[in-house]
Protein backbone atom coordinates (compact mmCIF):
# COMPACT_ATOMS: atom_id res chain seq x y z
CA UNK A 1 0.00 0.00 0.00
CA UNK A 2 1.41 3.45 -0.83
CA UNK A 3 2.56 5.22 2.31
CA UNK A 4 0.30 8.13 1.31
CA UNK A 5 -2.89 6.18 2.07
CA UNK A 6 -1.57 5.02 5.40
CA UNK A 7 -0.77 8.56 6.46
CA UNK A 8 -4.10 9.83 5.21
CA UNK A 9 -5.95 7.13 7.13
CA UNK A 10 -4.01 7.81 10.31
CA UNK A 11 -4.59 11.57 10.01
CA UNK A 12 -8.32 11.07 9.56
CA UNK A 13 -8.48 8.79 12.57
CA UNK A 14 -6.55 11.23 14.74
CA UNK A 15 -8.70 14.17 13.60
CA UNK A 16 -11.83 12.13 14.22
CA UNK A 17 -10.77 11.64 17.81
CA UNK A 18 -10.60 15.38 18.43
CA UNK A 19 -14.34 16.15 18.69
CA UNK A 20 -14.98 13.33 21.20
CA UNK A 21 -12.00 14.51 23.22
CA UNK A 22 -13.28 18.10 23.24
CA UNK A 23 -16.77 16.89 24.16
CA UNK A 24 -15.42 14.75 26.98
CA UNK A 25 -13.47 17.73 28.25
CA UNK A 26 -16.51 20.03 28.09
CA UNK A 27 -18.64 17.51 29.97
CA UNK A 28 -16.22 16.93 32.79
CA UNK A 29 -14.83 20.40 33.46
CA UNK A 30 -16.32 23.68 34.54
CA UNK A 31 -15.22 26.60 32.44
CA UNK A 32 -15.39 30.33 32.41
CA UNK A 33 -15.88 30.23 28.64
CA UNK A 34 -19.22 31.43 27.37
CA UNK A 35 -21.99 28.91 26.89
CA UNK A 36 -22.20 27.67 23.33
CA UNK A 37 -25.52 28.22 21.61
CA UNK A 38 -25.34 26.86 18.10
CA UNK A 39 -28.75 28.22 17.13
CA UNK A 40 -29.35 31.66 18.57
CA UNK A 41 -33.07 31.96 17.70
CA UNK A 42 -34.35 34.80 19.88
CA UNK A 43 -32.28 33.84 22.90
CA UNK A 44 -31.08 37.35 23.55
CA UNK A 45 -33.73 39.85 22.61
CA UNK A 46 -33.09 43.59 22.57
CA UNK A 47 -34.94 44.18 25.82
CA UNK A 48 -34.00 44.46 29.46
CA UNK A 49 -35.10 42.09 32.16
CA UNK A 50 -34.88 42.52 35.90
CA UNK A 51 -31.32 43.12 37.13
CA UNK A 52 -29.84 43.24 33.63
CA UNK A 53 -27.13 45.71 32.75
CA UNK A 54 -27.75 48.69 30.50
CA UNK A 55 -24.68 50.61 29.36
CA UNK A 56 -26.73 53.72 28.55
CA UNK A 57 -26.79 54.71 32.21
CA UNK A 58 -23.70 55.74 34.10
CA UNK A 59 -24.28 53.22 36.88
CA UNK A 60 -24.99 50.45 34.37
CA UNK A 61 -28.39 49.50 35.81
CA UNK A 62 -31.32 48.69 33.54
CA UNK A 63 -33.64 48.91 36.57
CA UNK A 64 -33.76 52.60 37.41
CA UNK A 65 -33.83 53.58 41.06
CA UNK A 66 -36.70 56.00 41.82
CA UNK A 67 -35.98 59.68 41.31
CA UNK A 68 -35.16 61.33 44.60
CA UNK A 69 -38.24 62.61 46.37
CA UNK A 70 -40.61 60.32 44.47
CA UNK A 71 -42.31 57.11 45.44
CA UNK A 72 -43.69 54.19 43.49
CA UNK A 73 -47.46 54.14 43.04
CA UNK A 74 -47.51 50.54 44.21
CA UNK A 75 -45.24 51.14 47.20
CA UNK A 76 -46.59 49.91 50.53
CA UNK A 77 -46.67 53.22 52.38
CA UNK A 78 -48.30 53.35 55.74
CA UNK A 79 -47.35 56.09 58.14
CA UNK A 80 -49.49 54.69 60.94
CA UNK A 81 -49.47 51.71 63.20
CA UNK A 82 -48.58 49.10 60.58
CA UNK A 83 -45.98 51.18 58.76
CA UNK A 84 -44.13 52.77 61.68
CA UNK A 85 -45.15 50.91 64.81
CA UNK A 86 -46.42 54.09 66.41
CA UNK A 87 -49.86 54.76 67.88
CA UNK A 88 -50.67 58.26 69.13
CA UNK A 89 -47.03 59.28 69.40
CA UNK A 90 -45.96 56.25 71.45
CA UNK A 91 -44.63 52.80 70.47
CA UNK A 92 -47.50 50.46 69.70
CA UNK A 93 -48.07 47.80 72.31
CA UNK A 94 -50.14 45.56 70.05
CA UNK A 95 -49.97 44.24 66.51
CA UNK A 96 -51.72 46.46 63.93
CA UNK A 97 -55.45 45.75 63.66
CA UNK A 98 -55.08 44.49 60.08
CA UNK A 99 -52.62 41.81 61.27
CA UNK A 100 -54.35 40.06 64.16
CA UNK A 101 -52.31 37.81 66.41
CA UNK A 102 -52.79 34.19 65.40
CA UNK A 103 -50.83 30.99 65.80
CA UNK A 104 -50.03 31.08 62.05
CA UNK A 105 -48.52 34.52 62.41
CA UNK A 106 -46.30 33.38 65.26
CA UNK A 107 -45.18 30.36 63.28
CA UNK A 108 -44.48 32.58 60.30
CA UNK A 109 -42.54 34.85 62.64
CA UNK A 110 -40.50 31.93 63.90
CA UNK A 111 -39.66 30.81 60.37
CA UNK A 112 -38.66 34.34 59.32
CA UNK A 113 -36.70 34.89 62.54
CA UNK A 114 -34.72 31.76 61.76
CA UNK A 115 -33.98 32.99 58.23
CA UNK A 116 -33.00 36.58 59.01
CA UNK A 117 -32.02 36.78 62.67
CA UNK A 118 -30.63 33.54 64.15
CA UNK A 119 -27.21 33.86 62.49
CA UNK A 120 -26.46 36.78 64.78
CA UNK A 121 -28.99 36.70 67.62
CA UNK A 122 -29.06 32.93 68.08
CA UNK A 123 -32.01 30.54 68.01
CA UNK A 124 -33.21 31.60 71.45
CA UNK A 125 -32.16 35.24 71.16
CA UNK A 126 -29.17 35.34 73.51
CA UNK A 127 -26.96 37.08 70.96
CA UNK A 128 -24.95 33.90 70.49
CA UNK A 129 -25.48 33.07 66.80
CA UNK A 130 -22.86 31.53 64.57
CA UNK A 131 -21.83 34.87 63.05
CA UNK A 132 -21.16 36.21 66.54
CA UNK A 133 -18.98 33.21 67.24
CA UNK A 134 -17.05 33.51 64.00
CA UNK A 135 -16.68 37.29 64.26
CA UNK A 136 -15.25 36.98 67.76
CA UNK A 137 -12.70 34.45 66.52
CA UNK A 138 -11.74 36.86 63.75
CA UNK A 139 -11.53 39.83 66.08
CA UNK A 140 -9.35 37.96 68.55
CA UNK A 141 -7.01 36.89 65.80
CA UNK A 142 -6.01 40.06 63.91
CA UNK A 143 -3.76 38.06 61.58
CA UNK A 144 -6.83 36.63 59.83
CA UNK A 145 -9.40 39.17 60.94
CA UNK A 146 -8.73 41.92 58.37
CA UNK A 147 -9.87 44.64 60.74
CA UNK A 148 -12.96 42.87 62.02
CA UNK A 149 -14.52 45.05 64.72
CA UNK A 150 -17.46 43.28 66.22
CA UNK A 151 -20.00 44.25 68.82
CA UNK A 152 -21.96 41.33 70.17
CA UNK A 153 -25.57 41.30 68.92
CA UNK A 154 -28.01 42.23 71.66
CA UNK A 155 -29.30 39.60 73.96
CA UNK A 156 -33.03 40.13 73.55
CA UNK A 157 -33.64 38.90 77.09
CA UNK A 158 -31.89 41.86 78.69
CA UNK A 159 -34.34 43.73 80.94
CA UNK A 160 -34.48 46.96 78.92
CA UNK A 161 -35.23 45.04 75.75
CA UNK A 162 -37.77 42.79 77.39
CA UNK A 163 -39.68 45.91 78.34
CA UNK A 164 -39.74 47.32 74.81
CA UNK A 165 -43.21 47.38 73.25
CA UNK A 166 -43.71 45.34 70.10
CA UNK A 167 -43.86 48.55 68.04
CA UNK A 168 -40.35 49.51 69.14
CA UNK A 169 -39.01 46.09 68.23
CA UNK A 170 -40.71 46.41 64.85
CA UNK A 171 -38.98 49.77 64.44
CA UNK A 172 -35.55 48.35 65.30
CA UNK A 173 -36.03 45.60 62.73
CA UNK A 174 -37.19 48.09 60.10
CA UNK A 175 -34.71 50.91 60.57
CA UNK A 176 -31.89 49.21 62.40
CA UNK A 177 -30.34 50.29 65.64
CA UNK A 178 -26.76 50.99 66.74
CA UNK A 179 -24.63 48.42 64.83
CA UNK A 180 -27.53 46.53 63.29
CA UNK A 181 -28.66 47.67 59.84
CA UNK A 182 -32.32 48.08 59.00
CA UNK A 183 -34.11 45.18 57.38
CA UNK A 184 -36.95 47.30 56.01
CA UNK A 185 -35.86 46.75 52.43
CA UNK A 186 -35.10 43.07 52.89
CA UNK A 187 -38.19 41.80 54.73
CA UNK A 188 -41.78 42.72 53.78
CA UNK A 189 -43.68 44.70 56.39
CA UNK A 190 -46.11 41.96 57.43
CA UNK A 191 -43.23 39.56 58.01
CA UNK A 192 -41.48 42.16 60.15
CA UNK A 193 -44.54 42.31 62.38
CA UNK A 194 -44.60 38.53 62.54
CA UNK A 195 -40.97 38.53 63.62
CA UNK A 196 -41.61 41.24 66.22
CA UNK A 197 -44.50 39.19 67.61
CA UNK A 198 -42.30 36.10 67.73
CA UNK A 199 -39.56 38.05 69.54
CA UNK A 200 -42.08 39.05 72.21
CA UNK A 201 -43.12 35.41 72.53
CA UNK A 202 -39.48 34.34 72.73
CA UNK A 203 -38.85 36.85 75.51
CA UNK A 204 -41.81 35.63 77.50
CA UNK A 205 -40.86 32.03 76.94
CA UNK A 206 -37.59 32.48 78.82
CA UNK A 207 -39.29 33.47 82.04
CA UNK A 208 -42.40 31.37 81.61
CA UNK A 209 -43.69 29.58 84.66
CA UNK A 210 -45.92 26.56 84.82
CA UNK A 211 -48.76 28.82 86.00
CA UNK A 212 -48.73 30.58 82.58
CA UNK A 213 -49.71 27.33 80.90
CA UNK A 214 -53.41 26.45 80.82
CA UNK A 215 -53.92 23.52 83.23
CA UNK A 216 -55.29 21.29 80.47
CA UNK A 217 -51.99 21.53 78.53
CA UNK A 218 -49.52 21.19 81.38
CA UNK A 219 -49.04 17.46 81.11
CA UNK A 220 -48.21 17.53 77.40
CA UNK A 221 -45.37 20.05 77.44
CA UNK A 222 -42.06 18.91 76.04
CA UNK A 223 -39.15 19.87 78.25
CA UNK A 224 -36.46 21.68 76.25
CA UNK A 225 -33.49 23.49 77.69
CA UNK A 226 -32.84 26.55 75.56
CA UNK A 227 -30.51 28.32 77.98
CA UNK A 228 -27.01 28.50 76.51
CA UNK A 229 -24.30 26.70 78.42
CA UNK A 230 -22.18 28.93 80.65
CA UNK A 231 -19.07 30.09 78.86
CA UNK A 232 -15.84 31.24 80.41
Amino acid sequence: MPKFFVYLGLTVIVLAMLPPALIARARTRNTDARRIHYIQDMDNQPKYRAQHANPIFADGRAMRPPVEGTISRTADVDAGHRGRGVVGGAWATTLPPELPMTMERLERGQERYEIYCTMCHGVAGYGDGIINKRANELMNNPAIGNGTAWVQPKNIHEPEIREQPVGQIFNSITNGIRNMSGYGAQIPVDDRWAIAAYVKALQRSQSARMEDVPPSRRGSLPVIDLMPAEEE
Partner: protein
Amino acid sequence: MGRYHFVFPRWSNLLLPGALVVGAVTPLYVVLVVAYGFSPKTTDVGYEPAQPVPFSHALHAGELGMDCRYCHNTVERAAKAAIPPTQTCMNCHTQIHKDSPQIAPLLESYQSGNPIAWNRVHDLPDFAFFDHSAHVTRGVSCVSCHGRIDRMEVVYQHEPLSMGWCLECHRNPDEALRDPALVTDLGWTFEGTAEEAAAEQARWKELHQINPSQDCSTCHR
Protein backbone atom coordinates in the same frame (compact mmCIF):
# COMPACT_ATOMS: atom_id res chain seq x y z
CA MET B 1 -6.01 -7.70 -26.17
CA GLY B 2 -3.29 -5.19 -25.66
CA ARG B 3 -0.05 -6.27 -24.15
CA TYR B 4 -0.52 -4.10 -21.14
CA HIS B 5 -3.03 -5.12 -18.50
CA PHE B 6 -3.78 -2.99 -15.55
CA VAL B 7 -3.26 -5.20 -12.56
CA PHE B 8 -4.87 -4.08 -9.33
CA PRO B 9 -2.24 -4.20 -6.64
CA ARG B 10 -2.74 -6.72 -3.93
CA TRP B 11 -3.65 -4.22 -1.25
CA SER B 12 -6.68 -3.11 -3.19
CA ASN B 13 -8.41 -6.23 -1.90
CA LEU B 14 -8.64 -4.34 1.38
CA LEU B 15 -10.67 -1.53 -0.18
CA LEU B 16 -14.04 -3.24 -0.07
CA PRO B 17 -13.94 -4.34 3.57
CA GLY B 18 -12.32 -1.01 4.43
CA ALA B 19 -15.12 0.93 2.76
CA LEU B 20 -17.69 -1.21 4.57
CA VAL B 21 -16.10 -0.51 7.93
CA VAL B 22 -15.86 3.23 7.24
CA GLY B 23 -19.44 3.27 5.96
CA ALA B 24 -20.66 1.54 9.09
CA VAL B 25 -18.63 3.56 11.57
CA THR B 26 -19.14 7.04 10.10
CA PRO B 27 -22.93 7.36 10.63
CA LEU B 28 -22.57 6.00 14.16
CA TYR B 29 -19.75 8.47 14.77
CA VAL B 30 -21.74 11.41 13.41
CA VAL B 31 -24.81 10.48 15.44
CA LEU B 32 -22.82 10.20 18.64
CA VAL B 33 -20.89 13.44 18.09
CA VAL B 34 -24.08 15.34 17.34
CA ALA B 35 -26.01 13.75 20.21
CA TYR B 36 -23.32 14.46 22.74
CA GLY B 37 -21.80 17.58 21.21
CA PHE B 38 -25.08 19.46 20.81
CA SER B 39 -26.50 18.31 24.15
CA PRO B 40 -26.93 21.12 26.67
CA LYS B 41 -25.08 18.89 29.10
CA THR B 42 -22.02 19.62 26.99
CA THR B 43 -22.70 23.18 25.92
CA ASP B 44 -24.33 24.61 29.05
CA VAL B 45 -23.65 22.56 32.16
CA GLY B 46 -20.48 23.53 33.97
CA TYR B 47 -20.55 27.20 33.02
CA GLU B 48 -18.70 28.85 35.87
CA PRO B 49 -18.04 32.52 35.21
CA ALA B 50 -15.52 34.32 37.38
CA GLN B 51 -17.14 36.83 39.73
CA PRO B 52 -15.96 40.33 40.60
CA VAL B 53 -15.96 39.51 44.34
CA PRO B 54 -14.76 36.09 45.55
CA PHE B 55 -18.07 35.43 47.29
CA SER B 56 -18.36 31.84 48.49
CA HIS B 57 -21.68 30.04 48.93
CA ALA B 58 -19.76 27.19 50.54
CA LEU B 59 -18.76 29.58 53.32
CA HIS B 60 -21.91 31.67 53.74
CA ALA B 61 -24.66 29.17 52.95
CA GLY B 62 -22.73 26.04 53.86
CA GLU B 63 -20.40 26.61 56.79
CA LEU B 64 -22.21 29.60 58.29
CA GLY B 65 -25.57 27.99 57.48
CA MET B 66 -27.24 31.13 56.17
CA ASP B 67 -30.63 30.52 54.61
CA CYS B 68 -30.81 31.20 50.87
CA ARG B 69 -33.73 33.54 51.48
CA TYR B 70 -31.63 35.89 53.60
CA CYS B 71 -30.02 37.06 50.38
CA HIS B 72 -32.30 35.81 47.61
CA ASN B 73 -35.25 37.24 49.48
CA THR B 74 -37.73 37.50 46.61
CA VAL B 75 -37.52 33.84 45.67
CA GLU B 76 -40.82 32.89 47.34
CA ARG B 77 -42.72 35.92 46.12
CA ALA B 78 -41.53 36.63 42.61
CA ALA B 79 -40.41 35.07 39.37
CA LYS B 80 -36.89 36.33 39.98
CA ALA B 81 -34.65 35.16 42.79
CA ALA B 82 -33.02 38.55 43.16
CA ILE B 83 -29.26 38.81 43.47
CA PRO B 84 -28.83 40.71 46.74
CA PRO B 85 -27.93 44.41 46.72
CA THR B 86 -24.66 45.46 48.33
CA GLN B 87 -26.61 46.61 51.39
CA THR B 88 -27.35 42.96 52.23
CA CYS B 89 -23.66 42.11 52.36
CA MET B 90 -22.97 45.23 54.39
CA ASN B 91 -25.31 44.06 57.14
CA CYS B 92 -22.28 42.06 58.23
CA HIS B 93 -19.29 43.37 56.31
CA THR B 94 -19.32 46.89 57.71
CA GLN B 95 -17.82 45.05 60.68
CA ILE B 96 -16.51 41.67 59.54
CA HIS B 97 -13.31 41.57 57.46
CA LYS B 98 -13.85 45.25 56.77
CA ASP B 99 -10.23 45.92 55.73
CA SER B 100 -9.91 42.81 53.59
CA PRO B 101 -8.94 43.44 49.97
CA GLN B 102 -11.65 40.95 49.02
CA ILE B 103 -14.26 43.18 50.64
CA ALA B 104 -12.89 46.38 49.11
CA PRO B 105 -15.13 46.26 46.00
CA LEU B 106 -18.14 45.89 48.29
CA LEU B 107 -17.19 48.98 50.27
CA GLU B 108 -16.58 50.85 47.05
CA SER B 109 -20.02 49.92 45.74
CA TYR B 110 -21.62 50.72 49.10
CA GLN B 111 -20.15 54.20 49.13
CA SER B 112 -20.69 55.05 45.47
CA GLY B 113 -24.12 53.43 45.19
CA ASN B 114 -23.11 51.66 41.99
CA PRO B 115 -24.09 47.98 41.90
CA ILE B 116 -21.55 45.18 41.73
CA ALA B 117 -21.51 43.69 38.24
CA TRP B 118 -22.04 40.02 39.14
CA ASN B 119 -21.86 37.73 36.15
CA ARG B 120 -25.03 35.82 35.37
CA VAL B 121 -24.66 32.08 35.71
CA HIS B 122 -28.10 30.72 34.85
CA ASP B 123 -29.71 32.34 31.87
CA LEU B 124 -32.72 30.98 30.03
CA PRO B 125 -33.35 32.22 26.51
CA ASP B 126 -35.49 35.37 26.58
CA PHE B 127 -38.43 33.56 24.99
CA ALA B 128 -38.82 31.15 27.90
CA PHE B 129 -40.70 32.13 31.03
CA PHE B 130 -39.68 30.82 34.40
CA ASP B 131 -41.10 31.54 37.84
CA HIS B 132 -39.28 30.74 41.09
CA SER B 133 -42.23 31.32 43.39
CA ALA B 134 -44.36 28.76 41.51
CA HIS B 135 -41.75 26.09 42.27
CA VAL B 136 -40.41 27.03 45.67
CA THR B 137 -43.81 27.49 47.32
CA ARG B 138 -44.97 24.14 45.93
CA GLY B 139 -42.06 22.28 47.44
CA VAL B 140 -39.44 22.00 44.69
CA SER B 141 -36.07 22.58 46.32
CA CYS B 142 -33.32 24.77 44.93
CA VAL B 143 -31.15 21.66 44.81
CA SER B 144 -33.26 20.10 42.02
CA CYS B 145 -32.31 22.89 39.65
CA HIS B 146 -29.08 24.39 41.01
CA GLY B 147 -27.26 21.46 42.64
CA ARG B 148 -25.45 21.72 45.96
CA ILE B 149 -24.92 25.48 45.91
CA ASP B 150 -24.02 25.30 49.59
CA ARG B 151 -20.86 23.41 48.62
CA MET B 152 -19.78 25.63 45.73
CA GLU B 153 -16.98 28.12 46.14
CA VAL B 154 -17.97 29.61 42.81
CA VAL B 155 -21.47 29.05 41.45
CA TYR B 156 -21.70 26.99 38.29
CA GLN B 157 -24.58 25.69 36.22
CA HIS B 158 -25.36 22.20 37.44
CA GLU B 159 -28.39 21.29 35.31
CA PRO B 160 -28.98 21.64 31.55
CA LEU B 161 -32.03 23.98 31.93
CA SER B 162 -33.21 22.76 28.54
CA MET B 163 -36.85 22.35 27.61
CA GLY B 164 -36.52 18.58 27.77
CA TRP B 165 -35.17 18.86 31.28
CA CYS B 166 -38.03 21.14 32.43
CA LEU B 167 -40.58 18.78 30.93
CA GLU B 168 -39.02 15.68 32.44
CA CYS B 169 -39.90 17.02 35.85
CA HIS B 170 -43.21 18.57 34.82
CA ARG B 171 -44.32 15.13 33.61
CA ASN B 172 -43.28 13.41 36.78
CA PRO B 173 -42.61 15.83 39.62
CA ASP B 174 -43.07 13.33 42.47
CA GLU B 175 -39.41 12.77 43.23
CA ALA B 176 -38.67 16.49 43.47
CA LEU B 177 -41.34 17.28 46.06
CA ARG B 178 -40.92 18.01 49.74
CA ASP B 179 -42.41 20.23 52.41
CA PRO B 180 -41.99 23.85 51.18
CA ALA B 181 -40.52 24.75 54.59
CA LEU B 182 -37.51 22.59 53.69
CA VAL B 183 -36.76 23.82 50.17
CA THR B 184 -33.68 25.77 51.20
CA ASP B 185 -32.23 22.88 53.18
CA LEU B 186 -30.24 21.46 50.29
CA GLY B 187 -28.85 18.45 52.11
CA TRP B 188 -32.25 17.26 53.36
CA THR B 189 -33.49 13.82 52.38
CA PHE B 190 -36.46 11.73 53.39
CA GLU B 191 -35.92 9.53 56.35
CA GLY B 192 -36.94 5.96 55.79
CA THR B 193 -36.98 3.66 52.80
CA ALA B 194 -37.36 4.68 49.18
CA GLU B 195 -40.90 3.24 49.13
CA GLU B 196 -41.93 5.29 52.14
CA ALA B 197 -40.50 8.42 50.55
CA ALA B 198 -42.30 7.73 47.27
CA ALA B 199 -45.59 7.15 49.11
CA GLU B 200 -45.14 10.36 51.07
CA GLN B 201 -44.35 12.32 47.91
CA ALA B 202 -47.35 10.89 46.09
CA ARG B 203 -49.54 11.81 49.08
CA TRP B 204 -48.11 15.32 49.08
CA LYS B 205 -48.75 15.75 45.39
CA GLU B 206 -52.32 14.55 45.82
CA LEU B 207 -52.96 16.70 48.88
CA HIS B 208 -51.74 19.93 47.29
CA GLN B 209 -52.98 19.04 43.82
CA ILE B 210 -49.60 19.62 42.30
CA ASN B 211 -49.95 19.21 38.59
CA PRO B 212 -47.30 21.07 36.60
CA SER B 213 -48.57 22.19 33.26
CA GLN B 214 -47.07 20.96 29.99
CA ASP B 215 -48.87 23.49 27.81
CA CYS B 216 -46.59 25.51 25.58
CA SER B 217 -48.12 28.71 26.93
CA THR B 218 -46.95 27.94 30.45
CA CYS B 219 -43.36 28.62 29.57
CA HIS B 220 -43.70 30.52 26.28
CA ARG B 221 -45.94 33.47 26.91
